C-alpha cells in the first residue's frame, strides 16, 4: 500500500488512541514501552504485528503531542525520527546504491525488541508472584548465629624479649649491628644487577674496577665493598657463561669481557 493510503486508513482510530495515551505520557517507561502499548491495540500476537502500522501509530502519537503543545522527552523524538526512516525504508523499493540493513531487517529487530521486552515483563510478574521469603515463607526468627569469638593471640619473639629486657635494665637502645653500615655496603645482588646491564657492551678485556658505580669509588669503605661484590658478581656471571675473567699475574688487574659465541673463551 502507498503512504497516503495507510495514513488515511489509520488516522481516525490512531489519532483517538494517541490522544488517550498522551494523557499519561509520563507513565511510560520510554519509547519502547509506548510502542509496546500501542502494539496492543493491534490485538494480534506480537510476532504478527505490523511494524509499519505501529510506526504510523507512534508517529500519530507524536503528531498529536505537538498539536497539544506537549513536550516529549528527547528519546521519544529520536524514536519518532527513526520510525519515520524505517517507514520510508519499508515503503520505498530498496535502493541498490544504499547499503546497510533493509527495512525488513530493521522491522524484524524492532519486533524482536518488543517481544523481548514483553517477555521480560511477563517473567518479572511471574517472579514477583512467587512465594517469597518474608512474605510466604520465613527464615529463622532468632538469629542464634555463630558466636564469632575472635581470639586474639599475642606473639613476641626472642629479640623482642631481649630488647625489652635491655630496655628495662639500661637506657641503652638495643639494635642489631648491621643497620648502621647498610649504607656503605653494595650487595652482591646490586652488583649483579648492574653488571648484567653493562656486560653486553664489554667486548674487550676491561678492568673490573671500571665497573664500579661512580658514587662507590670514592670513599674507601664503599669502594672496598663495591669491589668485593662486583668481583663476586663477575664470578657468578662467568659461572652462567655470560662473561670471561682473567688476571695476567698475581695482584694484577682483574679483567672481564663478555663471552660471545660458544667456546670462544680463553680465560
Amino acid at each position: 500500500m502507498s503512504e497516503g493510503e495507510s495514513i488515511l486508513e489509520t488516522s481516525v482510530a490512531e489519532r483517538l488512541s494517541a490522544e488517550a495515551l498522551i494523557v499519561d505520557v509520563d507513565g511510560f517507561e520510554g519509547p519502547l514501552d509506548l510502542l509496546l502499548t500501542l502494539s496492543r491495540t493491534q490485538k494480534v500476537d506480537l510476532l504478527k504485528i505490523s511494524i509499519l502500522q505501529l510506526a504510523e501509530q507512534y508517529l500519530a502519537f507524536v503528531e498529536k503531542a505537538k498539536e497539544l503543545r506537549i513536550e516529549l522527552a528527547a528519546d521519544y523524538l529520536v524514536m519518532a525520527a527513526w520510525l519515520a526512516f524505517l517507514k520510508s525504508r519499508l515503503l520505498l523499493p530498496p535502493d541498490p546504491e544504499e547499503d546497510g540493513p533493509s527495512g525488513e531487517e530493521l522491522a524484524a529487530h524492532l519486533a524482536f525488541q518488543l517481544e523481548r521486552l514483553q517477555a521480560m515483563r511477563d517473567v518479572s510478574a511471574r517472579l514477583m508472584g512467587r512465594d517469597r521469603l518474608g512474605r510466604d515463607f520465613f527464615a529463622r526468627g532468632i538469629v542464634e548465629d555463630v558466636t564469632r569469638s575472635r581470639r586474639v593471640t599475642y606473639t613476641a619473639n626472642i629479640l623482642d624479649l631481649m630488647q625489652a629486657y635491655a630496655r628495662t635494665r639500661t637506657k641503652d637502645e638495643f639494635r642489631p649491628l648491621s643497620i648502621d653500615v647498610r649504607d656503605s655496603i653494595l650487595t652482591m645482588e646490586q652488583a649483579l644487577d648492574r653488571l648484567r646491564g653493562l656486560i653486553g657492551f664489554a667486548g674487550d678485556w676491561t678492568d673490573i674496577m671500571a665497573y664500579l658505580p661512580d658514587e662507590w669509588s670514592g670513599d674507601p669503605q664503599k669502594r672496598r665493598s663495591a669491589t668485593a661484590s662486583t668481583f663476586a658478581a663477575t664470578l657468578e656471571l662467568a659461572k652462567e657463561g655470560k662473561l670471561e675473567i682473567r688476571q695476567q699475574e698475581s695482584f694484577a688487574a682483574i679483567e672481564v669481557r663478555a663471552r660471545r659465541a660458544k667456546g670462544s673463551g680463553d680465560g
Partner: protein
Amino acid sequence: MDEPEESLFQAPPMGEQERMVEAILFASAAPVSVRELAGRMPHGSDPAEALHHLRKRYEGRGVRVVKIGDAWALRTAPDLGFLMQRETVEMRKLSRAAIETLAIIAYHQPVTRAEIEEIRGVSVSRGTVDQLLDLEWIKLGRRRLTPGRPVTFIVTESFLDHFGLESARDLPGLKELRQAGLLDNRPPPGGDLEELEPGEEEPDLFEEDDAPADSVGVMDNEA
C-alpha cells in the same frame, strides 16, 4: 565439647552428623554452604550426605530444608505463610523499573548496564541499580571483555533465597525464553555498537559460580 581429638580420626556417626547440620542450619538465618558446614563439623564429616538425610526428614514438615545456590537453609513451608502475617516486615515496594531491571539481570546475566538499557529502551537510573544492590539481590559480575570493559550485573544468593529458587536455572519460563531466542544477544542490524558475537566469550549464562568480584572498587566506576 567432647573429644575433638577422637574426631580428628573418626567422623561421628551419620545420625550425629545429621543432628549437627540440623543445628547449624537452624541457628543461622542465612544459607550455609556445604563448605562452611564441613569447616564447622568434626573432621571427616560428610555434610552433603547428612543434608540429604535431613532434607528427607523434614519433608512435609512445617519447616523445610531448601537449597539456595551452593548453600542450604531451613525455611518455613510456604503453605503456612498465612500463620506468619505478624512476622511480616513490610516489604519495600519496588518500582516497575526496578522489577524489570531485576528480571533482565536474572534472565540475561551477566548483563551490562548498556544491555539492560537496550532491552528496556530507556536509560537505567542510578537509583534503580542502587536499590537492587542495596537489597542484595544483585551484585557485580566479571567485567565484560569488550572495549571499555563495562561492569556486569548478576543476581545473588539472597535473590535466590528470596524467591525460593535453587539456582538461576530454575527461573520461571527460562527454558521457553531461551528456546524462543529471546535471551539471545541479538545486535541491531547494521548497528554501529560493537556488540558481542552471541556466545563469544561470555561465560555461560547460568554457570554455577560467578566470580565474586570486588564490588566496592568496581562501583566507583559506574556513571
